[in-house]
């Protein structure tokens, strides 16, 4: 089993539904997006186009972040999902430096969105146990939702159906078919990381 995601950038409209779905489900801190949309222009007027590429943790098979973690906080689970045990993480940030995808965030504080008012909202209160200041965090491919039989929040939300979640190791799965059919590529594959997030463009 190897959970992963195919992102069809030819369908993506850059709407940020995935980014905010993730933020909402996980209650991430101000300024932290476990996944976000990168965008850039190509070409010149009037033949220019905006290009979109959603990016997230690639849940690498050969995860450099796990390799450098001195305390074994980052591990690659049997289902392929790379997780961080915040109880073990000591905040050394080796993994942040090692990740070629810039997918990790060192959480300086768990301050909420309204520090100027000195309060946390009811929503923030209920989600704060998910985060620990002084540790590193990132996309967990909604492993808690997957355990409940759901798909990750980002792919569930995507209005353009640009994200397809599934088991890359199951040759009968939709995602495996898409990877084969479109020769879906990973980001910086030459690094040998074996990313589980593949792109169709």
């Amino acid at each position: 089993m190897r959970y992963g995601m195919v992102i069809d950038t030819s369908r993506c409209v850059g709407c940020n539904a995935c980014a905010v779905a993730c933020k909402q489900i996980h209650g991430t801190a101000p300024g932290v997006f476990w996944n976000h949309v990168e965008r850039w222009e190509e070409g010149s007027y009037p033949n220019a186009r905006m290009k979109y590429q959603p990016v997230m943790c690639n849940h690498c098979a050969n995860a450099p972040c796990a390799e450098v973690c001195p305390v074994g906080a980052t591990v690659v689970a049997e289902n392929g999902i790379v997780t961080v045990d915040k109880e073990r993480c000591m905040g050394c940030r080796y993994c942040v430096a090692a990740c070629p995808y810039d997918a990790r965030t060192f959480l300086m504080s768990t301050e909420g969105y309204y520090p100027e008012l000195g309060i946390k909202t009811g929503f923030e209160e209920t989600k704060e146990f998910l985060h620990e200041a002084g540790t590193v965090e990132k996309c967990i491919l909604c492993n808690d939702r997957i355990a409940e039989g759901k798909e990750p929040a980002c792919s569930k939300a995507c209005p353009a159906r640009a994200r397809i979640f599934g088991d890359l190791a199951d040759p009968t799965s939709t995602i495996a078919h898409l990877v084969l059919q479109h020769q879906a590529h990973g980001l910086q594959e030459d690094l040998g990381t074996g990313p589980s997030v593949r792109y169709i463009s």
Partner: protein
Amino acid sequence: MDISRRSFVKTTAGVLAGTAVAAGVAGAATEAGFLPLLQATEGMFREALAAEAPTKTVTPGLCHSCHFARCSLNYTVEDGVLTEVEGNPNGPWNEGKCCVRGQAAPAFVYNPYRVKTPMIRTNPEKGLDVDPGWVEIGWDEAIGMLAEKMAALRADDSRKLVWMHGFPVFYNLITGMYGIVPATFGTPNTGMITGALCSVHLSNSLVQGGFAQYPDFAYGKYILAVGGTSAPNIAPGDGATSYIVDALKNGTRMVVVDPRCSPEAELGEWQPIRPGTDLAYLLALINVILHEEDRYDAWFLKNRTTGSYLINEAQSDYLRNEAGKPLIWDSVDAAPKAFDDPTINDFALEGVYTVQGEKVSPSFHLLKQGTTDYTPEWAEEITTVPAANIRTQARDLLDNALIGSTVVINGNELPLRPACVFLSRGMTNHRDGHVAFWTAMLVNQLIGAVAVPGGNVVASDPGALTPDADGVVIPENFHTRMWPWQFPHEMFQAQEFVPYGFDNAFRVNDALLEPERYQADYKPEMFISVGANYFNKAGDPERTSAALREYQFIATFSYHIDEHALFADLVIPDSTYIEQAAVYNFDMYRPGHPQLVNSTFGHKHIIDPVFDNRWIDEVWMDVAERMEMLYGPGQLVFLTNIILGIRPDLWLDLGTKPTQEEVIDRWLRTRYGDEMTLDTFAETGFAYEEVSGDKVFNYSYWPGSQTRHPLFNIYFKRAGDQLRAGMREAGVEHPGWDNELIDFYYRGIPQWRPTHAVETSSEFDLLGVLYKTPEMIFDVSGPSGNPWSVEAMETRPEFGKICLNTQTAEKKGLAEGDEVYVENRGGVRIGPYPVHTTELLHPDCLGIAGGNGHVGHGINPRMKRSIPYNHLLSTGWDAVDVITGAIDTSPRLKVTRA
């Protein structure tokens, strides 16, 4: 201590109110405005949580994070707190999807900058930068104050109340779109605040009797999208985004004619155009179709339009026989005949004939003659669209329309026209916007692509194409109400001066400041706004401010402190759709699932009110009760029954105050039958009906020549005639337009004249373009103050910046990040803001993403991150659409380095 969240919050608010008064809030309120009170509420969430027993529920409900509410979401509530939102897989429209706005719902609800309890001002001076000195008061006092003032005004002159509502409260049956409160009160001075920025309904309603037009993607193969927005640009979760993406990937071509390269243009093809010049472009399309290609759908024109109707010499009406029936020319018998004469051999579309002593022609002939000079080369000068492209696009329309083809759907053979022009707000909100809209619908008529598979369609509606005595589609839609001339004027703003005006709410301000121009014999004294804000839904902020100071009393229902609240005497907290029972009906075509009609979404409340806010309709019933406007014939419950069309046996008792849930229950049972109680409805969160695939297309209800779309614009012509006659009879002058202007635009065949879009101005050399983004559309659910929405917007390189085409910026010596001011010709200046250079914008434009910026004392600081584009708009009579009075959203602007 056994205490519920609600009682805790109420207790807290009461204590706070007492504390605030004792401490002298006016003195305590600083730049932070009402924030000291907020700070005192620290801990309310935590303590309330601890007090409640652990629970977890998942409830389906509507999403009202945009102007529509057709997505069904599942709301997870844990221990009384909304913790998760995701699409409901059973949702008939969204099928489990949820857009960026819906996802941001928790941050919308749990926003400490919300108005939490009723407040009054202690500082009589009103202004955007003036501290109102808020003091919290209890609900009883607030309702009593409102009821007392409203009752006194109603006894004096009910016309003196101005009531404005907007999208944000549309999930309330009584307070929302149906206007029941002002109707009961008895004021004609009511409107919807957003209408003047979104006049996208009139011409379509006139041509095919429906509220909103769409391209039929199910059969469509070529869509010429003029003026911008379709689903990918705002990325709703309602199915339209994925459906359009599917269509484009499967070979449907979509050419987006727009100053900005939008996401759908990126998926399809982008044809840049100078803003506000769409009319010239569309006229040139007709020129190519009729004069160069000489190809059109003659069958459709003869049988489905008034193209064959003879127009009298004055071009004011159809030429009629003694029975009053419109005449056509039978080209075989060489004789005039009534349009429905069974002996007609063939309808002449061209020629000049002498009938009843007049030289007359079919309307098609007049259209052809009237477009002779509008060549692609002529249009290129105006629009900057290369003539070759205009020719190609016209030919592509013709080629893809497959004129003469049919398709069998559900055993019913229908015309198939898989090509059309699709219109958006970007083309209608200009000086000649609705003449352009009408012209686009002419293009669709010429290729036979109206109300048929593949063409320009509206929601499935058996009655939409019902013909009148002239055989022409009856324009039955509230957008097509032509205001009859009345003098003295019905509305304070004298809507008669714009006969097809729709929600020209801003014009009230004009009339307040210059009543003599509007022949007013009274002056409004009270202003109530619910979900409405002139400052980001109109223009001219200084003029708006001056007008608001004219009122003796202003009450506003506000989600947060915004510009309107800063002028209010009484601020009432708004309730989000999540904290109360909500319902929303939506009868529209659903791309990808077109059989769906009459959809309704809603829920009982998902969570208790987070603060001391209350359900909106119930507040209004309390106010009405206190001012003796609730019970008995003609009062609020009575008019609720009438206006909502409640089935007689389900009528709400005229002597009993209903709950908001009871009103929804009666309304649901009326629409869907007795089985659809609110309890039943709430289990799924939606109700809908389905029709067969052929009935999706209104052609199927009125096939063949049973009804006709108007090719000759008899409506505009009649409106102009009525306007001039009315003014002449009353001896008054139009407050803004001369007769020559009216004559030019209010006519049966469209024609073009220069507007400010093509003026040569070395100083104000740019044309403004505001474009929607998924995170910020319409400001319905407070996105400009929602921290998640703002952060998502910040991932866009243009957010909070002034976008200029790269070459335009270079010519001005500006580079990315340079700070500039933006100024309009009225002297309004905003900024400084950084420049963003882009290749995705027409060189003549100044683009702003999202808009909806707010200004003012003590507002949520995030709301100032967005740019208040509307401040650059003028509401002057020279800056509005001549047909609908809608605000031109592309003013001439200049930038200056800060």
